[in-house]
């Protein structure tokens, strides 16, 4: 057993003991290390000013670490075990600016400077990836990497100009510059040893096996919360305090971020991040890939997990409608053993799941749909990217001889949980694939949903959207089918 968290910052080793482990990384950087280049604005992972780069044992490629961006304001130190972090202070190469930094200067990519360190970190991760993957920088790439960085001064255009003009020929990757095999050895050695650590009224357990995790959960005196990427719990802790008391983390369980394709399905480990899933599923699930693309920032997707999204059970959880219509199932594990439950049956009521207190999700299985299955996913929000949805939609149809069958329709944001619209599905079953079929079931859509009004949209708007999405779905599918 180990009673400390180990990580490196800009190549320097840190061991963290006791209460100290229950602070956000950004606070540790700014207040303890005096690395004030990392800025705090929103404390909820939504603005990107706190962006730093990180990599751990899951990010080794050709013996070297590949760095990804994360939001340090919601990354608590107890989730930082065996990671190397690079902050804005670690970007400069000795005393020289990198091509990322000089391009930002030259193209006026920085005005007030408060968001700039975050943008520099993000554009550095883009540059690392481009060099390592032998890809060129495109405007789309610049935008996709920096989706999670807000800037209020520049209107982004100068930042796009700066990003497009980074001189990659003279760019040395962070992966190369910070390569240190002794650090990786240090991580490997430590990864064999579980962590048990206590703070003032706080506790952390990081087991190295599923069995130890199950044992810990079976002990009723542990009132623990399972924490994966912490992209939601970190926010809750920052805003409400006192939420993180007893934490069980799966970070040291080997291979639990693995995504494997077998027998026409994907098996996804509980610690697989959204980014890893986005990459792995891009070919077989193009619609889901599109949704993942807009639903969160790279920083969040590099930390957060799909299984976390499932276990959070939000009625507007963006991943859930797709899993509901896609016949996905979950493997639940406890000391008693393992059992399977379909995602469709998993949600019973608002934030209530078919999962006992001593169980945890150990695997997610998503079958690859058949060739003649049509899928459509929509996420409607005030802002297209990185916004919590007003309404989400998932539709899955088998189309044969211009007839629809095997219909599954799910909506989020229109009731206390994500809903399947069973009456609509039945009414559509065996209908011809034409506009009239979809128009006919609209009153049923209205009947089966019960949205509320809030700051994300009025009840009336959600009703209208819900109906319109059925029509949009038809129009878009029919143009896809035609082509």
């Amino acid at each position, binding site marked *: 057993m180990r009673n400390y968290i180990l990580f490196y910052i800009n190549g320097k080793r840190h061991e963290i003991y006791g209460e100290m482990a229950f602070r956000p990384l950004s606070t540790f950087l*700014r207040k303890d290390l005096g690395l004030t*280049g990392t800025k705090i604005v929103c404390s909820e992972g939504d*603005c990107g000013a706190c962006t730093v780069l990180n990599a751990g044992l899951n990010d080794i490629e050709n013996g070297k670490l590949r760095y990804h961006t994360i939001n340090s304001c919601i990354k608590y130190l107890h989730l930082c075990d065996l990671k190397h972090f690079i902050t804005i*202070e670690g970007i400069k190469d000795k005393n020289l600016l990198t091509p990322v930094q000089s391009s930002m200067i030259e193209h006026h990519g*920085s005005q007030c400077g408060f968001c700039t360190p975050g943008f520099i970190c993000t554009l550095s991760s883009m540059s690392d990836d481009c060099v390592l993957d032998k890809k060129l920088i495109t405007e789309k790439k610049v935008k996709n990497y920096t*989706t999670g960085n807000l800037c209020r001064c520049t209107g982004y255009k100068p930042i796009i100009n700066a990003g497009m003009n980074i001189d990659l020929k003279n760019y040395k990757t962070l992966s190369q510059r910070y390569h240190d095999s002794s650090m990786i050895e240090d991580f490997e050695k430590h990864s064999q040893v579980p962590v048990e650590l206590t703070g003032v009224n706080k506790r952390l357990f990081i087991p190295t096996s599923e069995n130890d995790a199950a044992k810990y959960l079976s002990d009723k005196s542990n009132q623990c919360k399972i924490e994966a990427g912490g992209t939601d719990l970190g926010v809750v802790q920052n805003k409400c305090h006192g939420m993180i008391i007893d934490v069980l983390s799966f970070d040291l369980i080997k291979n639990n971020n693995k995504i494997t394709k077998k027998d026409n399905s994907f098996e996804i480990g509980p610690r697989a991040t959204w980014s890893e899933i986005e990459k792995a599923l891009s070919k077989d699930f193009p619609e889901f890939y599109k949704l993942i693309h807009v639903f969160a920032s790279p920083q969040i997707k590099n930390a957060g997990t799909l299984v976390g999204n499932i276990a959070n059970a939000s009625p507007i959880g963006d991943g859930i409608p797709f899993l509901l219509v896609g016949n996905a199932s979950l493997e639940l594990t406890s000391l008693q053993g393992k059992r399977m439950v379909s995602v469709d049956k998993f949600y019973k009521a608002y934030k209530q799941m078919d999962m006992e207190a001593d169980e945890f999700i150990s695997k997610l299985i998503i079958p690859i749909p058949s060739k003649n299955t049509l899928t459509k996913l929509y996420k409607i929000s005030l802002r297209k990217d990185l916004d919590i949805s007003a309404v989400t939609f998932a539709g899955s149809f088998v189309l044969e001889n211009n007839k629809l069958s095997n219909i599954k329709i799910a909506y989020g944001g229109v009731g206390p949980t994500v809903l399947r619209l069973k009456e609509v599905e039945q009414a559509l079953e065996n209908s011809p694939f034409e506009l009239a079929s979809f128009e006919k079931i609209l009153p049923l859509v209205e009947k089966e949903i019960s949205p509320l009004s809030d700051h994300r949209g009025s009840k009336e708007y959600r009703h209208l959207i819900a109906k319109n*999405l059925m029509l949009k779905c038809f129009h878009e599918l029919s143009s896809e089918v035609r082509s």
Partner: protein
Amino acid sequence: MSLGKDIPHDSSYTHVTGASNFIDDRPLTHKEVYVGVLGSPITCGVIEEIDFTDVLKLPGVLAGYTNKDLKSNVWGTIVKEQPILAFEKVMYRGEPIALIAVESEEIILEALKLIKVKSKESKAILLLDEAITNKDFIYQATPFTQGNFSEAIKKAPHKIKDYFECGGQEHFYLENHASLAYPLEQGQIEVHSSSQHPTETQHVVAEALGLSYHQVVCVVKRMGGAFGGKESQAAPLAAMAAVVAQNLNRPARLILTKDQDMEITGKRHPFKNFYEVGFDDNGKILAFKAELFANAGSYTDLTSSILERAMFHLDGAYFLENVEINGTAVRTNLPSNTAFRGFGGPQGNMTIEVAIEKMAMVLNKDALEIRTLNCYGEGKRNKTPYGQVIGYNPLPTLFTSLIDQSNYIKRRVAINKFNKESKTKVRGLSLTATKFGIAFTARFLNQGNALVNVHVDGTVQVSTGATEMGQGVNTKISQVVAHAFGIDAVDVNMMPTSTEKNHNTSPTAASSGSDINCAAADIACQAIVRNLKIVATRYFANEKFDDLHEYIIDESTNTDSIQLQDGQVSCSKTNKTETFSKICQIAYLNRISLGEYGFFKTENIGFDKNKGIGTPFNYFTNGVAATEVEIDRFTGECKVLKTDILMDLGRRINPGIDYGQVSGAFIQGMGWVTQESLFTDAEGVLKTHSPTTYKIPNIQDTPREFNINFIENHENTQAIHRSKAVGEPPFVLGISCFTAIYDALRCYNSSMNKDLDCRLTSPATNEKILMTMYGNN
């Protein structure tokens, strides 16, 4: 030459390396404490008791403070009516009512929950309509009139009587409000504040603490964005930090979280503007009448000036022969609304742009025809509703050039075709203009001072009243100073703004920061240059200087042959050259001053508020934008496909900085009219108080194609080196996104064979667009 050069922002090196120092980046000093601010738990009513008993038991909590701990608890830029810490009467949810001093930042939230507040709630007024009916007016402006509206409207073949509504806007500067107060000897206070107005902050702090102004220094190194949100409202927060510092005799740091910042501080004023317009078959405006209502929130703050600027900009780019403009500001139980880039101008201007869209619906015409027909003329049709005659007017040229550059006519045809064919999408196109008046409309604010110190190594330190918030004012000043001395801009260092060096300054606002402070610095420079030229003349003439002989400043000296350029001082008569630094050393050895204080005031402006007539502006900054949008027919989702901007910024001091100002202002304006939606619930609680719920544009929201260009204009003799102010004018161009949506709705209605007319309120969120398309708005 440094003028006109695209040199980088003077802080860019430290920005990209994370080394720039903002207030909360300052190292903790010995015994420093943090300040927590408790907001009112009720929206309107009376605070009867604040009990610190429980919170003081929490380890690390040192003290609690209320209004009683302030020597003076009232402030207000225009009307002194606003408490620093409200007590008996609270006016909005979250209004600061108490402070705590704690040893660790991490316990602030937990500690605030332990303060017990006894209060009595009374009915709050939250909606603008309710406030109008209620007649609780903060300010009623003198109307602006020109021609004869009531006669002209009678004769007009077409008439529209309608209203236009726009929402507020959160500044969303990335750096939240920050203040850090250090107690000095003899009760003096040095306060570092994220303030656009160090002088006002100094004054408010002094008054709150019972000090004279000369006992307080306010320092502003830089801000992480401000946009008007730190113009007036930084002052009370600095006073809160200072009162803790004074009471404990320890440094005190007050850093708001984003949630608190959004809950406590004011925003852009929402407006509801009623209008009546009469026009002919061609779309020529014959009569226009507007009645503006601004939602001021709880207190006056800067509202009266903001309302007037809205009235000044109601005309937009269009000549109104028969016009009447009225304005009223009403009080509601919301945070006191305040300055925000444009300062009411956009809310006024948008009214006429929307009225033109409605006229286009009535006439079923491209709104652009109406815009060019009514555009201010050159030499005629050039008098504003408040009597100022527009001098040099590039607007007609701007319109013509952008119609051409943006390929408007062809695109209009393509859009009509697209809208006929697409079952899922509808597109719209609009070209709008900005004509933004430059100057503070309160004349006394149009003054500034600068301190220029030349060192004997030929480098220069400059201090002015301008505050750097990212807009690059310091870079521009350094270029003007470098130009004056003929040296490189890297040899000019801009020093932190501080009231001990520059006092009685105006806020860095109204787009005038560069105009005023560059001019003041230049005046100081010219006095030093005069001295140096005399020194050089004597030196090149081989005049002797030693312990018995020295150069004197004889104003009659002819220095015409002396040039300061490229770090050299040269004489065309003697063909001699010496380095700038050497001449500075010689000046020093001859006991000639190398430091100057420059004072500048803007001439020939003045507006009679009681008559609603005069010349409030020094000049206008103009520009045009063409924006194309695409709307999803099923969801109302809107994408900006393309924007082309053409600006007139005179002779730009720094093209790169100006480009960034245009780009940034436009996207901010786009956010305001499309997606930035403030939601206050029926209890007066702001539900959108962080980026999770309040959505400013991100990089994916920017136009797919975004072009920014400038015209050459060397005619602006009204500003330093013939430049033009840039901060606010391009914000107004964001309105082109809104009018393009209107245009798309006109096309949609036409394609669906519906009545063309509809009403859209701002911001045009997906929801509002969709509900308008379905006639449910």
